[in-house]
């Protein structure tokens, strides 16, 4: 059995893993990246559209251009990596088992682990679309891989279910290939991806976006022949008499992303309700010395924000090893963060009280779009310690707050914080 001893092992060689590994390496620690695909770069490699790098590099890049900068830097720093290598298990004492076809079974003993496995797409089964099970149904990301990486077209006439970003980007991509995209169908009354993608990928190409509808039947016993879409009520139940038929030979699903945490779960780390692991303000999971960043932690809207988060994870893993923290006490005294009104989830899940002097970065998404709101943080005694006005919030955008709780006069005996998005009081008055 091949064995490695390293300071930090990074599981996943995509945008998150690369950025985290670079930070660790720059701190003069031994780091090893494990990547299951045949090259570094992760899903960003198949995102050949532009719009990357505006935050990180202040220039607009394509996905491959963006991630290549990190691949180059990792190579310049001589960061070792294993390709075509699948982690099959990691243990709480930070032994990682992986396999590949060159070295066989690999055992890596590390002092810290950074989880950067990314996310996967929700499927037809996950949303239980009824009908036949013909060929010609793809998740949007899978179609993207076929078109952009493998160089194959999955079909000619498309309907896309879900207005997630990948779905809208694929609508444009397929139009460029001479395919016809009949419609993008979204069950919510609003688009679920970024507004800029709605404008640049759908509106600019005259692709209809049909909101408040979903697919209620898939037709075609062999290859898909079409879909029936129906208007839904506020419970997402089909409204009878609202059916419309669209002929198509391919259906793409862009119905959400789920952090890929099977390994994390099997290791015994606690997983939060939205699928990512429970982490503290250092991005450390409930297993000592195991950190998480990127889409494995929470689904990000921009890869630039993945990079920023991964750098933090890298830095914290470095500190963990160098100082061995000495912060065990802090881990016992924690403040729990909860998602309140119109907040889908909040990261971190826990704040170590010993870190209260530092800035804490909160990230979250809202459940539904809302205008003229107040972002507010309350403690367990209902004391509002923070509030901020915003003109609007939408579920497709990740909201980030950088706060120093100490300066916000948090009570030292606080145990819980609730982050909530509420209508502004003056709006309430207007309503009255």
């Amino acid at each position, binding site marked *: 059995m091949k064995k490695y001893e390293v300071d930090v092992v990074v599981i996943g060689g995509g945008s998150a893993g690369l950025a985290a590994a670079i930070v660790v390496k720059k701190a003069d620690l031994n780091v090893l990246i494990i990547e*299951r695909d045949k090259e570094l770069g992760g899903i960003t490699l198949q995102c050949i559209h532009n719009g990357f790098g505006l935050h990180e590099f202040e220039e607009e890049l394509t996905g491959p251009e963006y991630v290549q900068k990190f691949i180059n830097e990792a190579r310049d720093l001589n960061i070792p990596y294993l390709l075509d290598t*699948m982690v099959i298990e990691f243990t709480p004492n930070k032994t990682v088992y992986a396999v590949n076809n060159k070295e066989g079974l690999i055992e890596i003993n590390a002092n810290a682990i950074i989880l950067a496995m990314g996310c*996967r797409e929700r499927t037809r089964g996950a949303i239980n679309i009824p009908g036949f099970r013909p060929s010609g149904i793809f998740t949007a990301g899978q179609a993207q891989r076929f078109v952009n990486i493998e160089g194959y077209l999955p*079909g000619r006439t498309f309907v896309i279910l879900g207005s997630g970003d990948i779905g809208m980007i694929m609508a444009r991509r397929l139009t460029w290939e001479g395919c016809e995209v009949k419609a993008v169908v979204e069950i919510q009354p609003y688009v679920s991806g970024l507004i800029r993608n709605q404008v640049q990928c759908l509106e600019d190409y005259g692709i209809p976006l049909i909101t408040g509808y979903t697919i209620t039947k898939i037709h075609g016993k062999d290859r898909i022949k079409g879909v029936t879409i129906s208007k839904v009520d506020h419970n997402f139940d089909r409204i009878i008499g609202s059916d419309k038929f669209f002929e198509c030979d391919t259906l793409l699903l862009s119905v959400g992303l789920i952090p890929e945490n099977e390994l994390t779960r099997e290791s015994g780390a606690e997983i939060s309700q939205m699928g990512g692991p429970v982490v503290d303000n250092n991005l450390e999971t409930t297993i000592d010395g195991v950190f998480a960043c990127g889409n494995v932690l929470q689904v990000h809207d921009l890869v630039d924000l993945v990079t920023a988060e991964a750098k933090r994870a890298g830095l914290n893993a470095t500190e963990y090893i160098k100082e061995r923290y000495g912060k065990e006490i802090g881990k016992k005294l924690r403040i729990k963060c909860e998602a309140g009104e119109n907040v889908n989830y909040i990261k971190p899940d826990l704040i170590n009280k010993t870190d209260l002097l530092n800035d804490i970065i909160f990230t979250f998404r809202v459940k539904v779009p809302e205008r003229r709101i107040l972002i507010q943080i309350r403690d367990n005694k209902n004391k509002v310690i923070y509030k901020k006005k915003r003109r609007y919030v939408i579920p497709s955008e990740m909201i980030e707050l950088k706060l120093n709780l100490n300066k916000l006069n948090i009570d030292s005996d606080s145990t819980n914080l609730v982050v909530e998005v509420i209508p502004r009081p003056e709006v309430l008055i207007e309503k009255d």
Partner: protein
Amino acid sequence: MIYDVIIIGGGVTGCCIARTLSKYDLNICLLEKETDIASGTSKANSGVIHAGYASPRDYIKRQLAIRGNKLYTQAAEELNFPFKRIGSFVVALEDNQIKQLEEERKKGIEDGIPGLEVILNKEKIKKMEPRLTDEVVGVLHAPTGGLASPYELTFALAENASMNGVKFFRNRRVVKITHQEYVFTVRTLAGEFKSRNIINAAGLYAAQISRMLGLDYFSITPRKGEYILFDRNAIQLNKILFPMPTKISKGILVCPTLHGNTFIGPNAQNIPDLEDISTTTSGLKEILEGAMKLVPSLPVRSSIRNFAGLRAVPEAYDFIIDNTDVYGFINVAGILSPGLTATFAIAEKVVEFLELLGEKLKVKEDYNPSRPKPERFKDFTKEELDKKIQEDPTWGRIICRCETIPEKEIIDAIHAPVGATTVDGVKFRCRPGMGRCQGGFCRPRVIEILSRELKKSYEEITKRGEDTNILIGKTKDFLLNQKREGSRGK
């Protein structure tokens, strides 16, 4: 060449008959209309091996199910397919249902079903199955009830039959049968086959096949059953849970699978179309509501797939296994539940019928009843795994991350006797694409392996045969062809 026996239909019934007959010195071939065996009812059913108490006493299927259940022990040892007697509960939610459970138990014991017991102690019941509803007042526990993976069983049977000389022909839809001078000529969409005997195990199409010889004494109605499959680890069940049976079906069950998933279903809906395996909004709702009565904590949001299968329902509601008026033509039709349970007993019956036809059945000297257990990555210890990868590096390339399937298992599935030729064929044999991502990650890689091993282009690789292609061509080809056509038009 004139075969001794042609079996029509490559479902579990046909394949089990093929395997059972392969013991004897006979020339046998099996004709399957689809691209793969186990493509119809055999791939979309509950996989429950019933204890056998459920059918009325005057039905032949009762005795065959009771016998068939017993035969599973040896068969599973010989054929190495997933099988486990985990036991089943029929769940009574009202006091007045207990009497019915007691009656079933009494009759079952009399008919030789071991271990049947009615349990009324709620604490004991909940200890055996903690997920069961608090409303339970009693259960009929059948410890010999079990689970088999119906398609893996079918593949195992076919592989073993093939090893013992049975010829399998797929993509052979039978369109006409003639009978002259004790020889049948079976015309298919791809060639003619001749034999002295025919066993009609065509499932939903059995009545059509029978009618080709003028035997119009039964009909088959498709009865759809819909299912929802949940992710592994979403909920852990110990027992197969049935509601109280109704006149037409055993009801909507909640059931673990041998791969760690849980499924619910089926409902029962008679339909006119033999190929309508579509699921419906109302059907999915119906099975969810039904299942929730037994297990209220169902992980509704962890569903990974819904599907439907069709039962082949004869009017008389019993199996039709007989030597027909056409000498040498045996019908094995209407094999609905508990058909999977009875399958080995049905095959024994077919042997009897062939003997009645005067066939001298001599056991082959080189008959080998065992089919080796497919090697699985998941079964290996870390040390074994390391050794395996050193011997064959394809053990070290993981293709399906949800189910941890290496390239080697896929290559084995393709090159097995009666091996996989399609993406679904690979999926049902060794599980890539069965997991929570439903092929999102592995499908491009499975296509790559199929294309390489079968020496076909990517475009030629299908989901499950003709008209189910996955990729239509290379990028730009479509655009360039359009342009060419456009300029020609001018």
